[in-house]
C-alpha cells in the first residue's frame, strides 16, 4: 500500500504533466481509496489553474488616470507646505530685515501686516508677473486688514498670505482666504492665482481660499493654471477644489456607468483623462450646455469651455437654475415615488440627477439599489440580478446592501435555479444574521428544494 506522503510528489508531477504513466496509474489507484489525497490533488489543480491565469491588466486610460493622480498628489503639496512651514520663521525674520518693505509700509499706511519686498521664493509656483512692475507687495497678515489695488478692494483675515503687484490686476494667494471686490470697467480681467487654480473676473465680489471660491456678487470663472476652465461660479454659489477631485470617485463613476441610458458627463480631476467610458469633450460640453439651456433641473450648471463673456441674462438664467437645484436626497425620494408609479424613465432621470448632485456613499447605495429595482420593474431579470449583486458587493455594509442581498435571493427563488437561490439565501443569513429579512429568508430557505 502506498502512503499518502509518497503520493504527494506524484500528485505534483501529475498536475504539472511531468509524471510517468506508471506513476499516474499508481496515483489513480491511491486516489480511488484516499479522500485526503483527492482533495490535495484538487488543491494542486486549482492552484495551477490560478497560476496559469493571465494577470489582470489596467487599460491605458486607467493607467493615465493613476499617473495623473500621482502627479497632483496632495501629499506633495503637504511636503512643500511642510517645508514652507519649517522655514517660515526664517522667512519672516529675513523679510522683517528688509528696510524697503518697512518704508513702503509706512508710506502707504494701509497695512496692518508685515510687508516684504519681492523675491519670495516662488520656484515651485511659476507665475506671470505684471510687465513694468518691479516690486510685488507680499502680505503675511498677522491681523485682518485690507488694501486697494487697481480698482480692487482686497480684504484679508489674520494669517492670510498673498502678494500683489502695485497697480496690477493680479494677486498671488499663498495661504488663507481673501475677499476681493473688483469694480467693473477695469482694464482686462482681474486674476487671483491660487496654487491649483486661477480665478478670473471682470467686475464682481468674491471670496477665494486655497481650495474654494465663493461668489457674492456677479460671476467668476475658475481656470486651471494651464488655462482650462474648471467652473463658472455665479453669485451665491461656492466651488470647491475638493469637489472636483471627489468627482473622480470610483464608486460614483461606476454607478453612473452602470445606469442604463444615463447620459452623464464624467467630471475628471483637473487635467486628468475622463474616467469610465470615453466621452468626447465636445459631446460632454454640448450636453451640459443643452441641459442649462433646457432648464433641466438636474443639470450641473456649467457653460461651454472657451466662452469669453458671460451675458447678464445668461448669468441670471444659470443662477435661477442653481437656486432650484434639488438635493440628492430629494431626487432619490422622487425616484422612489415615480418608480412606485411605474415610470422607469423618469426614475432613471432622477437617479442620474442624484448621482450628479454630489451624493454621499449612502446615497450612492440608494441610487444603485433603485436602479436595480428599476430593472426589476421593467422585467429585465438578468440585468436586475447583476445590479443587485453589484449593490451587495459595493455597499454590503449599508442597509441598501442588505436589501439588495435579500432582493437578489428572492429573485433567484422566483426565477433562478434553486441551487443558486439557496446559496444566495445562505449568504444573506450568514452575512446579516440579525438582518431585517432573516425570518423571511429562513422560510424561503426551508421551502427551496435542496439540489
Amino acid at each position: 500500500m502506498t502512503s499518502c506522503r509518497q503520493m504527494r510528489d506524484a500528485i505534483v508531477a501529475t498536475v504539472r504533466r511531468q509524471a510517468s504513466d506508471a506513476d499516474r496509474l499508481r496515483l489513480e489507484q491511491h486516489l480511488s481509496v484516499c479522500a485526503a489525497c483527492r482533495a490535495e490533488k484538487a488543491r494542486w489543480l486549482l492552484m495551477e489553474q490560478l497560476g496559469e491565469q493571465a494577470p489582470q491588466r489596467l487599460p491605458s486610460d486607467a493607467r493615465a488616470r493613476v499617473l495623473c493622480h500621482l502627479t497632483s498628489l496632495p501629499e506633495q503639496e503637504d511636503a512643500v507646505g511642510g517645508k514652507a512651514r519649517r522655514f517660515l520663521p526664517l522667512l519672516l525674520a529675513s523679510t522683517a530685515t528688509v528696510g524697503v518693505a518697512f518704508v513702503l509700509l509706512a508710506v502707504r499706511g494701509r497695512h496692518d501686516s508685515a510687508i516684504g519686498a519681492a523675491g519670495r521664493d516662488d520656484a515651485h509656483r511659476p507665475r506671470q508677473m505684471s510687465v513694468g512692475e518691479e516690486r510685488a507687495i507680499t502680505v503675511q497678515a498677522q491681523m485682518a486688514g485690507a488694501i486697494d489695488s487697481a480698482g480692487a478692494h482686497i480684504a484679508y483675515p489674520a494669517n492670510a498670505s498673498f502678494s500683489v503687484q502695485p497697480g496690477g490686476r493680479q494677486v498671488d494667494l499663498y495661504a488663507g482666504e481673501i475677499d476681493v471686490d473688483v469694480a467693473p470697467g477695469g482694464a482686462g480681467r482681474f486674476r487671483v492665482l491660487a496654487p491649483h487654480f486661477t480665478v478670473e473676473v471682470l467686475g464682481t465680489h468674491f471670496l477665494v481660499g486655497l481650495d474654494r471660491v465663493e461668489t457674492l456678487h456677479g460671476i467668476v470663472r475658475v481656470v486651471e493654471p494651464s488655462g482650462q476652465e474648471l467652473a463658472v461660479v455665479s453669485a451665491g454659489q461656492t466651488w470647491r477644489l475638493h469637489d472636483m477631485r471627489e468627482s473622480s470617485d470610483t464608486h460614483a463613476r461606476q454607478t453612473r456607468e452602470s445606469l442604463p441610458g444615463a447620459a452623464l458627463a464624467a467630471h475628471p480631476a483637473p487635467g486628468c483623462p475622463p474616467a469610465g467610458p470615453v466621452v468626447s469633450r465636445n459631446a460632454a460640453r454640448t450636453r451640459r450646455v443643452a441641459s442649462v439651456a433646457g432648464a433641466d433641473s438636474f443639470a450641473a450648471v456649467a457653460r461651454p469651455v472657451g466662452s469669453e463673456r458671460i451675458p447678464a441674462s445668461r448669468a441670471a438664467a444659470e443662477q435661477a437654475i442653481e437656486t432650484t437645484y434639488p438635493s440628492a436626497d430629494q431626487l432619490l425620494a422622487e425616484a422612489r415615488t415615480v418608480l412606485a408609479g411605474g415610470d422607469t424613465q423618469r426614475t432613471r432621470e432622477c437617479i442620474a440627477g442624484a448621482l450628479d448632485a454630489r451624493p454621499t456613499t449612502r446615497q450612492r447605495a440608494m441610487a444603485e439599489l433603485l436602479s436595480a429595482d428599476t430593472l426589476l420593474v421593467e422585467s429585465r431579470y438578468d440585468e436586475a440580478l447583476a445590479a443587485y449583486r453589484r449593490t451587495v458587493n459595493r455597499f454590503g455594509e449599508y442597509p441598501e446592501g442588505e436589501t439588495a442581498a435579500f432582493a437578489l435571493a428572492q429573485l433567484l427563488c422566483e426565477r433562478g435555479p434553486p441551487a443558486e437561490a439557496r446559496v444566495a439565501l445562505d449568504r444573506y443569513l450568514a452575512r446579516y444574521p440579525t438582518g431585517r429579512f432573516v425570518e423571511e429568508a429562513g422560510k424561503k430557505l426551508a421551502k427551496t428544494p435542496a439540489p
Partner: protein
Amino acid sequence: MFREHCVTVERMISRLVGSTPDLEDLVQTTFVEAIRTINRYRGEASFATWITSVAVHVAQHHLRAGRLRRHAPLDLVPEERLASSTPDIEVQLDERRLSGRLHALLDRIPARQRVALLLFTIDGRPVEEVAALTGASQTTTRSRVFLARRALRALISADPDLSQMAESLFGRRREGTS
C-alpha cells in the same frame, strides 16, 4: 517610477486579490504609499522588490478590510483574452467559472495566510522572499502557508463540485495538449 513598475504592481495585486474592478484604486494606492514612504527605502533591496512589498501590503490590507468586489468591468478583462481565437470557448468559460469559485474560496482564508500561500505556491517565491515581502519572520511565513493549505484543502473537500470541475478541466487540457 510609475511607468517602470506599473506592470509589476498590477501583476502582483491581481495575483493576490484576483479579478477585481478595484485594481485601478489599488495600483494608485500602492504608488501613493510608495511616494509617501519613499524615505524608508534604504536601498538594501532593489526598488522593484521594495515597491512589490508595498503592493503586497496594499493588497493584504484590502483583503483584510473585506471590501472585495468581484465583478470586473469589461475594460479590465485582459484584451488578449477577449480577442482570443481559441476554438474551445467552453474550456475558457469553465476556466473563468473555476477561477471565480476558487477566488471565492480564497476569500474565506485569512488575508495574511492567503497572501503567503499565493506568493509561495503560485509565484513560486522562496520562503525567505515571501517573509521579506510580507514583513513577517520565516517561521511565521511557513506557518501561514501551512495553515492556508490546510484551510484550502478543507474548503475544497467540502465542495466536491469544485474538485470535479478542476479534474474535468485538467482532463480536457491534457487531451488538448496531447
